């Protein structure tokens, strides 16, 4: 019984951690989406310079662990610039940079999955490149990408736990703080794990549901 009683005691602190975890995940996936769209468009553009830039960015970001990126930004960059980063800002920045590379790849894949005939049909009607993208390709591509986006969101949400190393008071760090006080790692870490599990399972189910709803056969009105 004491297991649940302890949970009730820890819950407010863990909940505020979970709140920050979710806020950071949402904020960074939002910015990563924007950067990802731009990089994704770069990687399918005709300009070799833009393509190379996007490729280099993606390789660089994917090749550096998130923890190193966060430590580098929070301690490294701030020491050179002689400023003090707000840890939450540094965390969102790290998560954004990290996720944007994966978003760019999702985006590129989604656009390339659309049959080239769609572009040709739109262009031969006289629509320009941007209008074709905006009205014909992107609406179809984004639909394909939604499950992958949600997947990336889940990954980013889990990645927030890494940011405990730069003293962001998210779920993991709040758990550690409690453990430092009561020396009950088995109990407290199990609470933390379950809280992640509940949120992420919820998101996974949502993703599944969306995927089914958006699948092509169910598209649109039936006659």
């Amino acid at each position, binding site marked *: 019984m004491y297991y649940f009683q302890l949970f009730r005691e820890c819950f407010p602190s863990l909940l505020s951690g979970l709140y920050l975890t979710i806020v950071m995940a949402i904020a960074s996936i939002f910015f990563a989406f924007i950067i990802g769209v731009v990089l994704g468009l770069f990687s399918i553009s005709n300009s070799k310079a833009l393509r190379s830039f996007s490729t280099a960015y993606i390789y660089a970001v994917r090749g550096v662990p998130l923890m190193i990126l966060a430590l580098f930004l929070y301690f490294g960059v701030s020491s050179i610039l002689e400023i003090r980063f707000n840890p939450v800002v540094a965390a969102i920045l790290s998560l954004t940079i990290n996720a944007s590379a994966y978003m760019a790849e999702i985006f590129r894949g989604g656009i390339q999955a659309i049959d080239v005939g769609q572009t040709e049909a739109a262009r031969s009607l006289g629509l320009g490149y941007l209008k074709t993208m905006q*009205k014909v390709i992107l609406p179809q591509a984004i639909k394909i990408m939604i499950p992958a986006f949600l997947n990336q969101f889940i990954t980013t949400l889990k990645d927030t736990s890494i940011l405990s190393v730069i003293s962001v008071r998210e779920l993991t760090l709040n758990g550690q703080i409690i453990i430092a006080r009561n020396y009950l790692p088995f109990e407290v870490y199990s609470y933390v794990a379950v809280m992640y599990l509940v949120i992420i399972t919820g998101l996974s189910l949502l993703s599944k549901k969306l995927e089914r709803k958006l699948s092509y056969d169910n598209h649109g009105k039936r*006659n």
Partner: protein
Amino acid sequence: MIITANEIRKSFGHLEVLKGISLEVTEGEVLCIIGPSGSGKSTLLRCLNRLEEIQSGDITVIGENIVQAKNINKLRENIGMVFQSFNLFPNYTVMQNMMLAPLELQKMTRKEAEEKAVALLKKVGLEDKKNVYPHTLSGGQKQRVAIARALQMNPKIMLFDEPTSALDPEMVEEVLKVMKDLAQEGMTMVIVTHEMGFARDVADRVIFMDDGYIVEEGTAQEVFTAPKSSRCNDFLSKVLSARTH
């Protein structure tokens, strides 16, 4: 001349698919391009609205040099194109498919576009399908919508890239019927096709292509009944005998 192509050459990498093609189409003419797979006929057609860039030569369409045109989009409004795989936009209804380009390009008011679209759908016999999504249509219906969508822009030329090749046999006729009507109204049409019967009935002129060259050219009568080249003769006898089996 509404289309003039002069000595055009086109390569994909090291593979040259058009080896110096010259071609003229007069206004109101129906030109059918026939030939075996890989002969370059689709590529030739796609060069006429610059879906493919050519390496050398010149193409003039409706008085404009299409190779050097700065504003290719403006030119393409006058050149309708129909594809083998229909390429309707699956995220839009039939009406939305038809109204997208004229509205986005501000060629018509919404009311004009709507009236025109309904009239065209009536013409291709699909008025009752105006509010459905393409995936509910049969192949033949999709292709008729695709033709109507191209006509919506009031093109001066219509290009057809094997419009019936992806259709089940029983749906070929309904599409050919729409194309025949269009030809009778005096539309300038360039048609890549394997439908020899159709070519014979409708074409003012037939071009036979093989291996990147125009091998034979003449009226449908000349090409089909008395081909001068052996390659054209072989091709026709193969295609025509396959049909009767």
